C-alpha cells in the first residue's frame, strides 16, 4: 500500500469538502473494494475519506410504500432489520447470501452500488425493484444509475446518501455462487410491482454488468410462475465466459435462477 492520508468525516458536507481538497481522493465505506486494490498497489489515493461512520448515512426507514436504506448501512444490519424483513424480505435474503459474515459486517449497500461490480448482488435488486439512488446532489433512478462494468452515473465527489425502494407486491432473489470468489456467478432478482409491472434483473451474467431480461419479464407478466419461464430462451450472446462459467452456462443460469427467484417470491 502506498502512503495516503486518512480522514474520518462526521457529515456528508464535510466528506464532500475533504474530497474537493484532495488531489486524488477516494471515499471509503466498508472498504471491501478499495482496500484490496490499495494493498495490491493498484490504487494510490492521496486521501481516503471514511464516510462509514457518518450517522446520517446509517439506518433503515419504512414509510408507506417506500423502504429507504441509507448508504453506509452494513449488509448485516440490512439483513437483520425488521422493516426490511417485513417490506422486502428478498433484500434481507440477498444480504444473507452476500459474501461471508466478515463481509456482511463491513460491507455497505452504498459501497456495493457505487462500485458496480458486474457480479455484485445489490445492483440486480435496485434495477429489479425500480429503486432510486439519492446522492448529496440529486436523485437518480436505478435504470439511469448503472452504466456498465464498474461504471455509474456518479460524478466525481458525489456521495450516495440513500437508496429508496418501492415496496413491491412480490420479489425474490436466487443466485449461483461463484465457487472461488463467492460473488454471483449469476444471480437474478425478480419483482412484481404493486402496479402489476414485472421487472427482472440479472447480475454476474452480462459483459456489460447488471442487465434486465425482457423475455423473462414478458413471460412472467402474463403468468407469474416458474413454469412460465420454461419456454424462454436466454441468448448467450454478450454474456460473460470464464473458467467458472461459459456464456451458454450463464444463459442457462439466468433462466434457472429466475425460476427459483419466482418460487422464492411466492
Amino acid at each position, binding site marked *: *500500500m502506498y502512503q495516503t492520508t486518512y480522514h474520518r468525516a462526521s457529515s456528508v458536507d464535510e466528506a464532500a469538502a475533504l474530497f474537493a481538497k484532495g488531489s486524488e481522493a477516494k471515499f471509503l465505506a466498508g472498504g471491501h473494494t478499495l482496500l484490496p486494490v490499495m494493498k*495490491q*498497489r493498484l490504487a494510490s489515493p492521496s486521501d481516503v475519506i471514511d464516510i462509514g461512520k457518518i450517522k446520517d448515512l446509517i439506518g433503515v426507514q419504512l414509510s408507506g410504500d417506500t423502504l429507504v436504506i441509507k448508504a453506509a448501512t452494513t449488509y448485516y444490519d440490512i439483513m437483520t432489520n425488521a422493516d426490511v424483513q417485513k417490506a422486502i424480505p428478498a433484500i434481507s435474503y440477498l444480504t444473507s447470501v452476500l459474501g461471508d459474515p466478515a463481509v456482511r459486517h463491513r460491507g455497505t449497500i452504498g459501497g456495493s452500488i457505487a462500485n458496480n461490480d458486474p457480479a455484485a448482488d445489490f445492483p440486480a435488486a435496485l434495477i429489479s425493484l425500480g429503486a432510486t439512488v439519492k446522492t448529496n446532489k440529486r436523485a437518480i433512478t436505478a435504470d439511469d444509475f448503472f452504466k456498465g462494468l464498474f461504471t455509474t452515473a456518479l460524478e466525481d465527489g458525489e456521495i450516495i446518501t440513500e437508496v429508496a425502494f418501492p415496496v413491491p407486491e412480490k420479489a425474490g432473489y436466487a443466485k*449461483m455462487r461463484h*465457487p*472461488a*470468489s463467492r460473488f454471483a*456467478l449469476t444471480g437474478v432478482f425478480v419483482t412484481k410491482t404493486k402496479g402489476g409491472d414485472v421487472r427482472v434483473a440479472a447480475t454476474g451474467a452480462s459483459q456489460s454488468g447488471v442487465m434486465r431480461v425482457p423475455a423473462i419479464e414478458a413471460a412472467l407478466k402474463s403468468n407469474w410462475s416458474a413454469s412460465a419461464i420454461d419456454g424462454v430462451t436466454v441468448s448467450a450472446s454478450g454474456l460473460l465466459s470464464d*473458467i*467458472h*462459467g*461459459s456464456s451458454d*452456462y450463464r444463459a*442457462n*443460469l439466468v433462466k*434457472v435462477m429466475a*425460476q427459483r427467484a419466482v418460487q422464492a417470491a411466492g
Partner: protein
Amino acid sequence: MGMEGIGASVVRKEDKRFITGKGRYVDDIKLLGMTYAHFIRSPHAHAKVKSIDSSAAEAMPGVVAVLTGRQIVDDKVGNLICGWAVTSKDGSPMRMGAWPAMAPETVRFVGQAVAVVIAESKNLARDAAEAVVVEYEELPAVADMPSALKPGAPQLHPEAPGNVVYDWHIGDEAAVNAAFSKAANVVSLELTNNRLAPNAMEPRAAIADYDAAEEHFTLYTTSQNPHVARLVLSAFYNIAPEHKLRVIAPDVGGGFGSKIFIYPEEMVALWASKKVGRPVKWTGDRTEAFLTDAHGRDHISKAEMAFDADNKILGLRVKTHANFGAYMSLFSSSVPTYLYATLLSGQYNIPAIYAEVMGVYTNTTPVDAYRGAGRPEASYLLERLVETAARQLKVDPAELRRKNFITQFPHQTPVIMAYDTGDFNASLDAAMKAIDYAGFPARKAAAKAQGKLRGIGLSCYIEACGIAPSKAVGSLGAGVGLWESAEIRVNPVGTIEVLTGSHSHGQGHETTFCQLIAERLGVPISQVSIVHGDTDKVQFGMGTYGSRSAAVGLTAILKAMEKVEAKAKKIAAHALEASEGDIIIENGEFKVTGTDKSIALPMVALAAYTAHNLPDGMEPGLKESAFYDPTNFTFPAGTYICELEVDQATGKTSFVNFVAADDFGRLINPMIVEGQVHGGLVQGIGQALLEHAVYDSNGQPVTASFMDYAMPRADDVPSFKLSHTTTLCPGNPLGVKGCGEAGAIGASAAVINAITDAIGNNKLEMPATPDRVWHAIHGNA
C-alpha cells in the same frame, strides 16, 4: 495403552500456542539490522531479459542494494538441482535446462525472479522495485503439453529438444501386448489430472543472516526438511559448507509437499545477506505463492485395461504426459515415475502392466510433489478405469473390484512394489456397510422421483508410504537416502527430550512422538518435549513428507528408546541389586519383577549423571541415538465411497454422504489421524470439484488469487464418516503405515465416479465444476 500412550486420542500439545497466537513462524522473527527483500518477477511467460536499469531505484530512500540474476550467476551460486535421476527408455539421462536462482538472460514462467531489491523496510523495497526498469524481449510461449509437444513449438531449453525431459517406461510391454491380444474385453479411458496450487496457510518465507567474522550463515526458512535444505545448499549451491550453515525451520504453517523443495528465494536471501552484510528477510505474499510455489499433478493420460471372459484383469497399459513446468524442481522427476507408475497395480491382481511417461517442459510454474505426489494420479486413473469397466461390463463396481483384489500377501506387483500386508475386502466391506450400499438403488429411485440425479462412487486406493528404503530408492535414481534419525536425551532429573529429523508442520508430532515415550516408560507426556527443525540441535534428518514420520521417524525414536531403556535397566538393576533381566518398566518406575523393589526414572537418570555408583565400565549419562532405515515402503489402503446428488438445472453437486474405511496399521493418536484424513479428503474433494491452476495460451496465469482459484470451504464438503480396518504393518516394529496423504489420494475418484454415475455420462474432467457437469448432463461436454 496408558492414558497418554499409543492409541490414545491425546489433545495436541502444540495447539495451545497455535490457537493463542503464540506460534513462532519465520515472519515473526526479527533480527537486529534486518533488511527486507522484494523480488522483481517476470510478467512474461517466456522472454529474453534485455537489460535491467536499477540506477533510479538504488538512489531511492532506504534502498540497500539491487541485485540481479547476472550477479548471482557471476558469483557462481549454483543452479537449482533436480535430485532424482530418471533414465529414458533409450537409456539416455534426463535432459534438463539450467535453473539459476534469478534469471540472467531468459525467463520461462510468469513470476520467475530477475532481480531483487534489498531495503530497510518491505514497503521501501516495493517502492524501489517499481523504479527498476527491466527491458524484455517477448518470446513465443507454450502453456500446455499438447502445444509444447507439437513440431515447431517454442523450445524452452536447448538441452531438451522438443520440450521433452524424458520418455520413461516401466513394466513388461510384451506381456501386456500378449494379455490384450487374448482379452475378452478391453476398457479404455482418457483423462487429465488437473494442475493444483498447494496453498499452505503460511506463505513461504526466509531470513538469512551472515556472520562475516565466523563466515557462518543462519537460515530461517519455511521448510519440511531443514537438513535436506542444508545438504543441498552446501553440496550443490556453493552457499557455505555444512558446518558453516545452520538451517532452522521453526513453526511452519502447512506444507503439503510445497515446502520440501529449495527455492530460489532462500538461495538469494543467503547470497544477498553476505553481499549486503546484514540479515535479509523475504516473506512471500499469496500472489507469489500462486506464481512460485511448486504446483502439483497436471497429467494427461490414456489407459486401457484388458479383462478375460470372467472379468479378471489381464493387463493394464498406460501412457501419461506429465507437465513439469518451466524447470525441474527438486524431486519433480520422481513424481510421475517412481511415485506414480509403481502404484498402478492398485489393490488389484494385475498380471501385466506397462506404463510410459513422458515429462514435458512448458512455460508454467514448476511442478513437483503435492500431497500424495504421483499416487493420487495413479489412484484416480485406476479407480476411474475400473469404475468405467464395471459400467461397460455391466457388473457391480464393488464386485468387479472384489473379484480382482489381491488377497495373498506379500504380493509382488509387476511395477516394483511388493505389498507386505492388507485386507482390501475388509475396508470395502466396512465402507459399503457404512454407506448402506445395498440400499442405494432405492435411494437413487427416491431421488429421481424428486427430480434429482443421485450417484454413488467407489475408490479403493493404495499408496506407498513410509518413504523409503534407502537402498531401493538409490537403485531407482534417488540422490539421497530416506532413513530417519533420532536422539533421546534423558535429563538428570528424568525429563526427556526427543530430537527428531522429522519436521512437524501440522502433523502433531509434538504430541504423537511423546505418546511413544509415554507408552514405553509410563511417564506423562508433559515430561517429554520434542526438538525438531534446527540443524544445530538435531544431528541429521530427512524431514516430513510421503507419510513417513510415524513409519520411519517414530521408528527411529523407538530404536533410540530401546537403547535408553537397556542402559537404564542396567543402572536400575545395579541400584536394586537385581538381575538386569528381572527389571520391568511400569508407570515411570523400574521394578524388579515379582518383588516390591523399584526405583523411579528420575533416580535412574540422576544416577546416570552423578555417576557415583554405576556398573563397572559404564559411561555416565543417559542419551542414545539411532538411525532407522526401513526395509520396505508401507502400504496404507482403504475404500472411500461417495454418495451425492446433482442438480440437473445447474449442474451443482451436493454431497449426501461420504464414508472412508482406511487401513493405516496401528494408530498412534486416532484424533490426529482423523484430522489428517479430514484434511486429505477435503484436498481430494477440492481437486475433484473446485481447484484448478489455469494458464491462458500465452502462459499467463488465470488463477493467481483466491478470487479465481477455488479453495474448498467448510460448506463445500460433507461431514465424513470414518472407520478403520487394521492390518499391522509387518515392516516396522510399531506396525504403523502412515495416514497423511490417503484422503488426497483416494477421494477424487470416488467423487467423480459418483457424479458420472449420477448423470450417466463418463466423459467428465476435474474439476467437475457445475458448468462442466451441466454440459455433461446435456450431452455436449
